[in-house]
C-alpha cells in the first residue's frame, strides 16, 4: 500500500530549547572575538577617564579593574560576570554597562522595528505589483526605484530626507527622541527603511515571478481562478516563506545601518552608544553593545524560524 508519512509534532518548547543551546557557542565565540579584538586596542584605558591622573593612581586603577591580569584570566572573569547578566562597568561613565544598555535598547528596537515595518509594508506589495506585470511600466518604475534605493549612501539620504521633510515641508521634527512619540520616529525609520524596502521589493518580485511559474499555480489557474485569487490563495503564502528569510537576515543589516542613522538623527539607541564608546575606547561598553546586538539578532532569527513553522507546514521542528 501507499506509504504515509506520519505527522510528528515535536513540541515547540523542546525545539526552542535546542535552538537556544545551539546559539551558546556562537555567543561565546562572539564574546571571545570582541574581547580579543579589544585587548590589543591602542590608547590606555585610564586615559579615557582622566587627563592627568597621578601615575600611582593610574596603576592602582588598572589593578582595580583587573587590567594587569593576563588576557585569559580577564576573559574568564568577564564570562563569569556575563553569566550573571553583568556586562561590567563602563570606563567612561562608570555606570554598569547593563544599565546603560537597558536604557538604549528600547529606542533602537523602536527604530529597527519601525523601519522594518515600513520597508515590509511598502516593499512587499511593491514587489507583488511589479511581478504581476513583469516588464510593464509599474514593474520598471518599481525596480528602478528599488535599485536606486540600494545604491545611495545612507547618511546622505538621511540628510536629504531631513532637509525635505523637516525643513522644507515642516511636517516632522528633524532630530532627537523627544518624548518618544511617533513623530520623532518617522524620519529616522524612513531613512533606515529605504534600502530594505528596495531589497524586499526586489526579493518579492523575484519570488513571485518564480512561484508564478510553479506547477501548482497552473493547477490553480486550471481551476478557473482569477489571477488575483491565484496570487492571494496560492502565491502569497509561498512567497512569504522566501520573504521571511530575507526579513530575518535583513535585521542584521538594519542593526548595522542603525549606527549611522542614530548618529545622524541624534537617536538615543545602542548604535550611537556603540559609536561613542568605540571612539572613546570604552571597551566594556563596546563589548556590551556588540553583544546585545548579536543577541537581539539571534533572538529575532529564532523568532523567524518559529514563524516559518506557522507559514510553511513542510517545516516541522524535528
Amino acid at each position: 500500500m501507499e506509504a504515509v508519512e506520519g505527522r510528528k509534532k515535536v513540541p515547540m518548547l523542546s525545539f526552542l530549547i535546542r535552538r537556544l543551546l545551539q546559539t551558546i557557542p556562537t555567543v561565546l565565540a562572539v564574546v571571545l572575538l570582541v574581547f580579543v579584538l579589544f585587548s590589543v586596542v591602542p590608547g590606555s584605558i585610564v586615559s579615557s577617564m582622566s587627563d592627568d591622573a597621578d601615575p600611582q593612581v593610574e596603576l592602582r586603577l588598572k589593578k582595580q579593574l583587573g587590567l594587569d591580569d593576563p588576557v585569559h584570566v580577564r576573559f574568564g572573569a568577564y564570562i563569569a560576570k556575563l553569566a550573571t547578566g553583568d556586562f561590567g562597568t563602563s570606563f567612561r561613565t562608570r555606570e554598569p554597562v547593563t544599565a546603560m544598555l537597558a536604557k538604549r535598547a528600547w529606542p533602537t528596537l523602536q527604530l529597527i522595528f519601525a523601519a522594518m515595518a515600513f520597508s515590509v509594508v511598502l516593499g512587499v506589495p511593491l514587489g507583488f505589483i511589479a511581478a504581476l506585470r513583469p516588464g510593464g511600466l509599474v514593474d520598471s518604475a518599481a525596480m528602478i526605484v528599488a535599485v536606486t534605493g540600494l545604491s545611495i549612501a545612507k547618511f546622505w539620504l538621511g540628510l536629504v530626507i531631513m532637509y525635505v521633510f523637516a525643513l522644507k515641508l515642516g511636517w516632522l521634527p528633524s532630530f532627537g527622541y523627544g518624548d518618544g512619540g511617533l513623530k520623532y520616529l518617522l524620519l529616522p525609520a524612513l531613512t533606515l527603511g529605504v534600502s530594505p524596502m528596495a531589497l524586499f521589493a526586489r526579493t518579492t518580485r523575484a519570488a513571485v515571478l518564480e512561484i508564478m511559474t510553479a506547477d501548482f499555480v497552473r493547477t490553480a489557474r486550471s481551476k478557473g481562478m482569477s489571477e488575483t485569487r491565484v496570487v492571494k490563495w496560492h502565491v502569497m503564502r509561498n512567497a512569504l516563506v522566501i520573504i521571511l528569510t530575507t526579513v530575518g537576515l535583513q535585521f542584521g543589516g538594519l542593526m548595522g545601518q542603525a549606527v549611522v542613522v542614530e548618529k545622524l538623527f541624534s537617536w538615543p539607541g545602542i548604535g550611537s552608544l556603540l559609536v561613542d564608546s568605540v571612539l572613546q575606547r570604552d571597551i566594556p561598553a563596546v563589548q556590551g553593545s556588540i553583544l546585545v546586538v548579536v543577541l537581539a539578532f539571534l533572538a529575532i532569527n529564532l523568532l523567524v524560524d518559529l514563524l516559518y513553522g506557522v507559514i510553511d507546514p513542510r517545516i516541522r521542528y524535528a
Partner: protein
Amino acid sequence: MTGAPLIEVEDLRIDLDDGERRVAAAEGISFRIDRGETFGLVGESGCGKSITALALIGLLRPPLSIGAGMIRFDGREIQHLSAAAQRDLRGNRIAMIFQEPMTALNPVSPVGRQIAEMFVLHKGNSWREAHQLAVEALASVRVPAPERRVNDYPHQLSGGMRQRVMIAIALACGPDLLIADEPTTALDVTVQAEIIELMRNLCAERGTAILMISHDLGLVANVCRRVAVMYAGRIVEERGSADIFRTPSHPYTQGLVDSLPRLGSRAALGRSRLKEIAGVVPAITNFPDGCRFNPRCAHATDICRSVAPTADLLEAGGLVRCHHHA
C-alpha cells in the same frame, strides 16, 4: 459519431513568440470528442500535445498563444471568450489533471482546502460547506480516513494519494471534459493502474469525457476509444484504438506500434520504448519542409521532402496525413 460533439477543434494553430520571431508550435490541429467519450493524444515530448491541451482549457501563457483556428465547446466557440467567461468553464466544465502530483499541489495549503476552492469558486458554497464537500470528494477518490486527510498538506501524502487528490479536485464540479496530461507517468508502476482505473470509473459514472495525453500509445489505446497521434506539431493519424494497433497507416504510428513490447510485459518497461525509431524529433524552430517526418522515414520520396501531406480520410474510418499511406 452521433449527436453534437462535446468539443470540436478545427484547424488550431499555436504560436510561439520568442520576441524576435513567431513560429507555429502546432498547426492544423482538428479533432472532436463526443460527450462521455474517451479520446487519446499520443506523441513524443515536444510534439505539441500538451500545449494543445492547454489551449483547450485556456491556459496558454506567453510566449505561447492561439494563432488561428477554432475551439467549439458544447456548441460555443470558446477561444475568444472573455477571461471571466473562460474562467467559468475552466475547472467547472473542463478540468485538468497534471503529470507531476508532487508539484501540482500547493505545498503550503491543506489538500482539503485545495479541493474546497472548487466549490467556493464555481458552486458558490461557503468555506464551511466546501470543506464538508471536500471530505466527500476525498472519500469518492477512495482516500482512507478522509476527515483526517483533508487537513493534511501535500508533503504528508504519497504520490498516489496526491494524484487522487488531483482527481478529486478535477472532478469536484462534475465537469463535462477531463483533460489528463500524463496522469500516471510520475507514479510507481503498481500505483499507475489503480489511478487509471479510478479515473476511468469515476468518469464513466458521471458521463465525463476524457482527453488523455501520453507518450504511451499502449496505455492510451487501452483507456481510450479513439486515438490521435501527433508528430512535430501536427496530428499525423487519428483512428479507433483497436484499428490503430491492427493497421497503423502512418509510418510514425507504425514505428510506435512496433516499438511496443509484446502484450503482457508492457507495464514492466520504462519510457525508452520510442527510441527505436531512428533519428530525432526536429526542433520547433527547424521543422523540415514537406512531411515533417521525412528525415526519419524509411519510405520517404521526393514529394515527402517538398509537399506537406493533407489529412486523408481512411476508408475504415479515421484520418491520416501521409503521401504514401496504405
